[in-house]
């Protein structure tokens, strides 16, 4: 049995739409990955705890509420605190261009705006799992 890439897809924050997150989850599945989908309204602590228990290679965060500048870096921070910084974090959603460098600096490895081709996202997670 070969090592499988495992990715956690989570939606922190309070907005109630997860269509985008589900599309990503399916695309990753179709690329042969195991995607753990945790549903809506998760706190950063919940997300990190789930990521550790599921032993994922990467976390994909989706946020449409505008709270990404606090939520995404918070996930990275808690991962570090739990000595699990080998888990790669990527984020997506409605994210203004000027926030991207700040998020990258905070340890978010990739930021995907709306309209990012799925192949690019799939490619990122494939590479992230290998490089980790």
């Amino acid at each position, binding site marked *: *049995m*070969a*090592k*499988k890439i*495992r990715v956690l897809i989570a939606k922190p924050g309070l907005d109630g739409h997860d269509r985008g997150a589900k599309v990503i*989850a*399916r695309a*990753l*599945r*179709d*690329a*042969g*990955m*195991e*995607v*753990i*989908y*945790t*549903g809506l*309204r*998760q*706190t950063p*602590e*919940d997300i990190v*705890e*789930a990521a*550790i*228990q*599921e*032993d994922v290679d990467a976390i994909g965060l989706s946020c449409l509420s505008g709270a990404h500048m606090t939520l995404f870096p918070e996930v990275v921070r808690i991962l570090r605190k*739990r*000595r*699990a910084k080998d888990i790669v974090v990527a984020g997506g959603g409605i994210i203004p261009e000027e926030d991207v460098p700040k998020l990258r600096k905070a340890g978010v490895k990739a930021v995907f705006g709306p309209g990012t081709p799925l192949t690019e996202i799939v490619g990122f997670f494939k590479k992230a799992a290998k490089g980790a």
Partner: protein
Amino acid sequence: MRELVAARRRRPLRRGRADNRVAELVQDLARGDKRAAAKLISLIEDDEPEAAEALERIHPRTGKAHIVGFTGPPGVGKSSLINRLVRAYRRRGKKVGVVAVDPTSPFTGGAVLGDRIRMAETGIDPGVFIRSMATRGHPGGLALATFDAVRVLDALGMDIVFVETVGAGQSEVEIAKRAHTTVVVEMPLSGDAVQVMKAGILEIGDVYVVNKVDLGDADGLVANLNQEIHPRNGWTSPIVRTSALEERGIPDLVLALERHRAHLESTGELREREAARARQEILDNLRRLVEERARRADRVRAEIDRLARDVVERRLDPHAAADALLLGMARRRRVPVPRRRGRAS
């Protein structure tokens, strides 16, 4: 599943101080470290070279957890019920593990594992460990590594471990062979008793749950089930009505699980079930080992080619050919007797 692989390792384990990664992980596991548990499950699931050693070290630390399997058609409410039970057992101060299995796509090899959605309220509770698992092509509603993951959670110190099978809606005897207590979940709208019987499900349930009683009249289904359930070894499987949504009937379900556990213990059936499971696992591993060896060794492969020709030429039937092959394999390679060993450190 892989104890025999472990037995094949002839080098005895070093005792005492942790001297390698696996030993360290298992020591951390015994201290209740969830990250170690998660890493060990992956290592076994991916069948890494250290998997056999990991299982060998973990096995002596297991045997305390009550293993409860949940099966039933898709969407019947297995995850939601387990979520409620997790809360109920936590309130009683028990530590709870969950292994939830979802199917792997046969086309892409990928999977979306969604059982966690229903268990989200568990959050960061330190006394809970939930692991999602894809079948990776294994039939029977479970993954090959499912019960190895259960072992890991047992060794992590969980008092009870729930296993959620793929809701295939058909007979899932594998879970019944492996769990201490098997819970079969149905719902009022899921069809008549004839269907239930066809599924062979009436032979495997230690506890029956009629969930979603908030949605419709459960009396018909309960009456039908009642007619079909007969005492087995002094145990008559109870039927519990629940609504996971409205949190109804959960204490009754807890009581039914506790009663069954007590029944297994007082009648000695617990040991019997464990022995049955061990026998099954030894046979599973034997099959795996023989197949692996047959496939790997050139000599054996050549022998199979020769025998296959004999079968095609009608000089030999396939059964006799397998017999001959097994005999040849056993003769040429003495079966190593595994050394008796004390507890792993």
